[in-house]
Each structure stands twice: as C-alpha cells, then as structure tokens.
C-alpha cells in the first residue's frame, strides 16, 4: 500500500505510504501517511539490541508514569552495560494530524526520539510513547505508542523528551509541560469550527520507524469505507467469504447512548472467525484459563438444542407452533448483564440451579405474549387483556417445564448433575428482574457468561426469552471437563427428558 512519492524538504529520499484508517464518524474515512526518515549517523556499539530494547521499555514505563506529574522531571537512566554515547536524543521527526484536508484543522508536532544503534544497522528507539526497532529494510513496533484511534476517538499523547547521553551521566529530561502543550495544541486546533466533525482524518508521521507506525496504525484501525445498508438483522450481516458456511460467528456488540439526547445505536463488530481465533490463541498464555473455541461452539449448540426442546415443549402444551430463533453466549462485565434484558415489563419464572455450573435461569415473556400463551394452555377461553392469577399459574407451569428441559439438556452434555429450585414467578421490569441475579453472581466474579435464547411464533404475538447466568468459574470448570465429541449426545439426551 505504499507509494513512492519523492523526497521531503531536507532532500533525503523518502517513502510515503498511505494507510486507510478508521472513520472518525460513521461516514467518511481517514488516511495515515507515513514518511521515512534519514538513517541516523553511524555509532559504535557493543551491546545487543535486546539490551537496548529492554532499557528503552524501562524508559517507556518510567516516562509514562512521570508524564502525568506537574513539573518537568529530569530523569537519570542507567543504560547498564551499554555505553552512554550509543544513545542519542533526536528531535527530527514529526506527527501531523489534518482533518477534512483543511489547513485550519491541521496540527504539526515534533516527535522526540531516544535511539540506540548497533553496528549491524539495527536501531531501537523510544518515540511517541512506544518502543520501535528498525533494521536495514524495515521497522517494527515493540510496545505500542500513545496514539490510539478507537470508538471514533483519536487519542494522542506525544511524550516530549530532551537530554544528553555521555560517559559522565545519562540524562533524559521529560518536558512534562511541553508534552501537555503538545496535547493541548492538538485539542485546541482540532476542537474548533468544523474540525470535530470530520469526514476524513489524515495522520502523517515522519520517522525512522515509519513502517512500524504504519503497521501499528494499520493493524489497529484499518477499515474499508462504510456502506449504507438497511434490512432485517440477518440480511445485513456481511457474508464474509470465509465465514459463509459457518454456523456460529463471534460478535462484539457496543451500545452507544447520547447524554441528554434520545439517540441510541449499536455497533456490531463481526471479526472473521479464523483470524480472531488465531489472534486469541496467540495472545493466550499457556497457563491461562482460556476456554478453547471448540468448546464454546459445543456449548452454543447444546444451548440451541435445549432451546429447541423447550420450544417443542411449548408447542406440545399449547398447540402453538414455536421455533427457537436466536441463541448466543455472551461474556460481559457484571454491571452490563441487566442490559441483556429490555426495560419493558416481563412475566416469567426464575430458578436457581445448583451443581457444576450453578447459577440462575430466567424464562421471560413480554406481557402480551404471556396472556396469549397462558390462554392457549387454559381449558376455558378467558379472553382477558390482563394477567389474572390463572394466567400466572399457567406461566409458572410453562416456565417450570421449559427450565427443566433447558437445564437437563446441559447436565446431560456436561455429564454432571444440575438441580434447580422450584420456579419463582416474576412480573416486573425486565432489568429489575435480572438485576438481583446479576448482583448475586457479582459477589464472586467481575465478568459473567450470559446464555440467551429467544423463541418466536408467527401464529400469534408471542415471544419468550431464556437467559442463564452461570457461575463463571464453575462454567469454566464444566467446559474444561467437557469432551467435545459428547456434543452429539445432546439431542438424544434432551429428548429423553420430555
């Protein structure tokens, strides 16, 4: 993606690359332009680049801590076995951010660099809050810089350093005030006029580590220009070539709300299955408690089968043809758990299940569905608009049998015993129903798995949701003990229940 666009103002052969970046708003796109820089002067060296990398990473973490302080601290670093003269402080790079190609929305700031070069032409540098390495042909990022573009927000914090290295003392001064000024200049210049409503944003970096920057910005935030789509939830899912035949996908969902405005929307990110799983496995450490992806798939299938059986059971009891529609397994901070349920009033049942895993299971109907489904179970036609005690008794019975099917389905696949309490009937605001359950689970864990499934029917207005909130550690344990090939047993075993 790089084009050779000639030299810069200092007459040194440059490479200019353009990298397509992220939209700052939902429409439009952004560009990153990366310049190369001249090689720094020859230096003698004895130490390895690894030692220099370690050293600069220490510098990075020290400066990151100090940059928040109010005065301009001067820091003396000991490069250990490296001779001081092998390090330089350079201030010949820059970063430019331009919005909408508008010169009035453009900021240029110096990039200061602490660099070390060895005899083989390898350079390690601390620049822009990150550590970089460059060889003869290319450069790479070692630790990320303080420049991020995420959720439509650009964060730039360019640490400004001056200093000298010599035999007597190795001194680096962090100009905290100048660092703040840099940040404020960005804010002031880009927060005025139309600048905060960008159609596109160009980030230009001139640096010896230009291709490291390009890779960093590219992998962090590359995207294609957005396309406007309308349609039902299923039609607008992108048909990724590799994922077309896949039954399950990963989805990252974010809900955005405006303060004081009645605007809400969701951002769904659907990463390609293969690339996400390979990324996750490369980041998981061997000792971690990561759950293998194939077990999540089995678990999801198990939930789908359980939901289908619960739906079949509804049909059996009511004569209304019902289909399992959505099943998903979510992982969210405990305080976000109640958001899985709507704010409307729901009727349903809640049980606590014990065993491995333990947790809570909710069967919820919206009020209209509850009336309809309850009447379908009654021998006498009620034709009521409101829920009577008879309706509630019918819902309790239905909730009980749906719960049993669901929980026993799990137990069979996990080959553990999962018991549950008698159902408690609830009729309240959806979020208030799940809130005490999230709080009870939240006493032991910060994140929670949430199993959600929905069923619908075309015949009458009817919708039911099943939500399970298992204990996180116990679910991990259960999945850990789960044999993937046992998933085939799910269907048969669940059928035995009914």
């Amino acid at each position: 993606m790089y084009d050779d666009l000639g030299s810069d103002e200092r007459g040194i052969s440059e490479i200019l690359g353009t990298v397509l970046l992220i939209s700052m708003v939902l429409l439009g796109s952004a560009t990153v332009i990366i310049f190369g820089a001249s090689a720094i002067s020859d230096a003698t060296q004895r130490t390895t680049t690894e030692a220099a990398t370690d050293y600069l990473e220490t510098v990075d973490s020290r400066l990151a801590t100090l940059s928040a302080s109010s005065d301009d601290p001067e820091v003396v670093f000991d490069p250990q076995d490296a001779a001081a003269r092998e390090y330089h402080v350079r201030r010949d790079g820059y970063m430019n951010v331009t919005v909408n190609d508008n010169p009035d929305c453009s900021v240029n700031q110096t990039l200061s660099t602490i660099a070390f070069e060895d005899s083989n032409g390898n350079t390690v540098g601390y620049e822009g809050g990150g550590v970089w390495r460059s060889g003869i042909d290319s450069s790479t990022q070692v630790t990320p810089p303080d420049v991020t573009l995420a959720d439509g927000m650009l964060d730039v914090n360019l640490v400004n350093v001056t200093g000298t290295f010599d035999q007597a003392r190795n001194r680096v001064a962090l100009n905290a005030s100048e660092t703040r000024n840099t940040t404020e200049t960005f804010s002031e210049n880009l927060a005025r006029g139309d600048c905060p409503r960008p159609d596109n944003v160009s980030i230009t970096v001139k640096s010896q580590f230009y291709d490291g920057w390009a890779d960093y910005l590219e992998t962090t935030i590359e995207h294609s220009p957005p396309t406007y789509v309308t349609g039902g939830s299923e039609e607008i899912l992108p048909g990724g070539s590799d994922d077309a035949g896949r039954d399950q996908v990963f989805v990252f969902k974010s809900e955005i709300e405006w303060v004081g405005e009645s605007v809400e929307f969701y951002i769904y990110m659907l990463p390609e299955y293969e690339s996400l799983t390979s990324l996750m496995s490369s980041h998981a450490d061997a000792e971690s408690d990561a759950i293998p992806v194939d077990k999540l798939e089995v678990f999801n299938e198990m939930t789908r089968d359980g939901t289908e059986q619960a739906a079949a059971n509804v049909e059996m009891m009511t004569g209304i043809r019902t289909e399992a529609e959505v099943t998903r397994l979510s992982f969210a901070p405990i305080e976000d758990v109640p958001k899985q349920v709507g704010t409307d009033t729901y009727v349903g049942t809640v049980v606590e299940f014990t065993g491995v895993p333990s947790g809570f299971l909710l069967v919820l109907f919206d009020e209209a569905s509850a009336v309809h489904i309850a009447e379908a179970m009654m021998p006498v036609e009620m034709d009521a608009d409101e829920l009577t005690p008879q309706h509630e008794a019918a819902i309790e019975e239905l909730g009980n049998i749906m719960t049993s099917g669901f929980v026993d389905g799990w137990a069979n696949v996990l080959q553990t015993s999962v018991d549950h309490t008698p159902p408690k009937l609830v009729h309240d605001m959806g979020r208030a129903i799940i809130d005490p359950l999230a709080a009870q689970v939240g006493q032991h864990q910060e994140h929670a798995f949430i199993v959600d499934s929905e069923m619908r029917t075309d015949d009458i207005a009817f919708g039911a949701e099943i939500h399970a909130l298992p204990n996180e550690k116990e679910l991990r344990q259960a999945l850990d003990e789960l044999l993937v090939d046992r998933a085939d047993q799910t269907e048969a075993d669940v059928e035995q229940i009914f």
Partner: protein
Amino acid sequence: MKVYDGSTTESLDTTAPERVKVGIAEYQVTADDAVLTTSGLGSCLGVAIHDPDATVAGLVHVMLPSRDEMEGKNEAKFADSGIRELVAEMERSGADRGSMTAKIAGGSDMLDFSQNGSGIGVRNVEVGRRVLSEFDIPLDGEDVGGEHGRSLRFEATTGDLIVKSANRDPITL
C-alpha cells in the same frame, strides 16, 4: 486528546430539562436543571443527593454493598465507595456537604436466593444508610425493600425523587 467523541454541542430543547441517564454502577452529577434517571433497580440501590443551596444534584446506582468484600476497580459499583465518590464529585461541582440531603430507593428483596443471612438488597440499604450517616447527610426520604423493581427520576432543581414501579403508581419522595 479528544478530536471527536460523539458529544454534540447542538442546542437542546430549552423547554425541557436535560435528561441524563445513570447506568448500573455509574453516577452522574449535575449543577444545571437536569433530570437524572436510572432504571431497573432490583436489589440495586439508588442514592440521590441534593444540595439546594448550590443547586447541585447527584445520583448513583450501586449494585453491591461493600467494596471491601471483593475486588473491583469501579467505585460506583458498591454502596460504600459509590456514595463516597458521589459526595466527592458533588463537592468538586460546588456543593457543600453541610447542606446536602439524601433520598434512597431500591434494595428490593425480590429473587433473593441466599440461603442464610440477609440478601443483597437489605445489605445495600444498610450500608447506604450507614455511609450517609458517616457523612452527616440526613436521609430525607426512602422507598426501599419489598418485592418489586423500581425506576427513578431525580429532579435537580427541586430535589424531588420520583419512584416508579411496574405494578404501582409512582410516588414522590
């Protein structure tokens, strides 16, 4: 540095006060005539604090009683640290602790499956009352416990806390 964060400076409807949502384990403070709202309080507790002299109001929606009982970085998740954080933030906005009054709502016993000891709702209320009294902030009204959920609307100008429930008429504290 923030270039674009989704916030807008477009003029709001001046006839209605700004409505600010407070999510679970969050707090909001206003020095304007905003209305702070939060929904879906089950065992969670809403603590509304008002300083009529400085016209500063704040609302926190806490989930669990005490930060000491477990790990957690979010102060607003717990009744003790959440109230402390809310009072501190109100003071930064110009409120005076001596003029503050508080109202609490929520802490329902619904769906409490705990086998022994008090449920989370009860303990949220206990800790909420205790921390407010540590700060010498008088409790001016409360609607707590019971077996139902609540949603809150806290009017910063008047200090009125309107409590809505699914099966009950709204009440004003």
